[in-house]
């Protein structure tokens, strides 16, 4: 993260941050001077921006050179020239994907998960070069923009192909084994994350509802401190009425928790969860007001 993006994270106003900061301003305006309210509101907004503008954790992009393509390439490599094997593997991959999902292509475009294809010299360029008669060992060296360990593939494949096709085939199979192991680990992590996500959603909603109950029962808690809002002198009707001063900060805490922490879990939509959290908070508060108001 460079200086510019750090500043942008801090200064770009996030809609939810603005709403929560407005809540703080509303709460403070009766207690403080205008300058104090402005200073606290701005500081609060900057803090909220710094959390809300952070990138949400998302699942990795799809490989440019798919596992099925690599396997097909390795299988054909011993029997034909590298260029012919490459073209055949691409053809097989295309047929497979067209059969499975309509217009998906081997290069990763066309599917929902593959919107971010690495830029640079891609597999499509290799295909064009092969058709123009350039050897595969040369055109592979020009591939750029692959991510993670896939970035190792073009150079090493090119070196191996110059050495021996059989060895290349063996090495590709080894790399596929590595990918399969990674897939197994990914699915194990995904399973654990799914459990954590569910736990997070449930706990967030419980937290939101509990906050609403505490906000509603705040006069009882405050009476323990012996400061104000004691139940007996004011009477139940006055005591258990809507109090924006307590309602807004409690709601802020519940919504913040739901939105910010959802950024750590790939399967949780922060917006949906914060809306659900706020709605539950409102619903609990209204239900308590109605039920207690009706009984008193």
């Amino acid at each position, binding site marked *: 993260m460079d200086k510019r993006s750090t500043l942008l994270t801090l200064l770009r106003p996030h809609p939810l941050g603005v709403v929560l900061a407005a809540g703080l301003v509303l*709460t403070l305006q009766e207690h*403080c001077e205008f300058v104090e309210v402005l200073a*606290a509101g701005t500081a*609060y907004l900057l*803090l909220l921006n710094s959390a809300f503008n952070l990138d949400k954790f998302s699942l990795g992009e799809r490989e440019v050179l798919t596992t099925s393509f690599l396997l097909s390439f390795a299988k054909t490599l011993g029997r034909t020239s590298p260029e012919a094997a490459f073209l055949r593997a691409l053809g097989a991959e295309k047929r497979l994907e067209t059969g499975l999902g309509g217009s998906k292509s081997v290069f990763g475009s066309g599917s929902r998960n593959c919107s971010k294809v690495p830029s640079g010299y891609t597999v499509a360029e290799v295909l064009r070069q092969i058709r123009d008669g350039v050897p595969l060992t040369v055109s592979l060296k020009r591939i750029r923009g692959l991510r993670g360990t896939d970035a*190792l593939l073009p150079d090493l494949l090119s070196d191996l192909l110059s050495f021996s096709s059989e060895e290349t085939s063996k090495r590709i199979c080894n790399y596929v084994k590595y990918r399969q192991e990674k897939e197994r680990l990914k699915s194990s992590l995904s399973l654990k994350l799914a459990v954590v996500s569910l736990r997070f959603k449930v706990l967030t909603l419980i937290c939101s509802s509990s906050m609403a109950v505490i906000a509603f029962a705040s006069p009882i808690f405050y009476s323990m401190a012996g400061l104000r809002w004691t139940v007996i002198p004011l009477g139940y009707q006055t005591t258990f009425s809507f109090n924006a001063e307590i309602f807004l900060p409690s709601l802020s*805490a519940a919504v*913040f928790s739901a939105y910010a922490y959802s950024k750590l879990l790939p399967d949780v939509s922060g917006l949906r969860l914060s809306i659900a959290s706020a709605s539950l908070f409102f619903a609990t508060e209204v239900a308590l007001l109605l039920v207690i108001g009706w009984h008193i």
Partner: protein
Amino acid sequence: MMKKYLKALAIVAPTLSLILFMLIRNITISAIIIGAPLLSIFYLKRARNPSVRTLLLVTHVMELLAAAYALSGSLKQSISQLCRIESPVSGQFRSALLRIRSGVDPAESLKAAFQGNPWCSEWLESLLKGSVSDAQDLFSAWSAKAEEVILKVDDLLSFVIVFSTILPVIFLIILMVSGVEPPLIYLLVVFQLALFQGVYHWIKGLLSLLY
């Protein structure tokens, strides 16, 4: 380094100004206000535990080597290829390559390159003894480390979730029973924010190892 300071300042300055403002408004609540950042700092220190950093580094290096070894079949060529790809440890691979070029054994040079870091795994020792004969050995070692990452992520996330959902409820009651003025309840958000900022990059780093 400058970027780190700038980022820290960007987060700390508004937090401090907000806390100071709250302090001025109500002196009695100072203990709670100071307590919240202290708790966050405690948590941050826990997250900065060298074991998490080591785990991140070791798993990352292992994965890179396992993938490169699978493709090249030689440690020397793997190291030479790993110098070319952008990663937090490419500097170490470059220094290992320099040693290899001056005639040092690849496994020895790799160990020397990573000596400054808290990393001395059994796997590296086995490399030195020459017991790594196949890419499968590397996969098994890397896979075992990655399983550790998964457990760590699970632990850390569960801990954070408890902090972010159950603690605010308890703190809200404590604040009210202590007779804190309603605007100061916003400190709960500040506390949650500090905790979130502290763990975000660590959890993201651990998760991105496998995704």
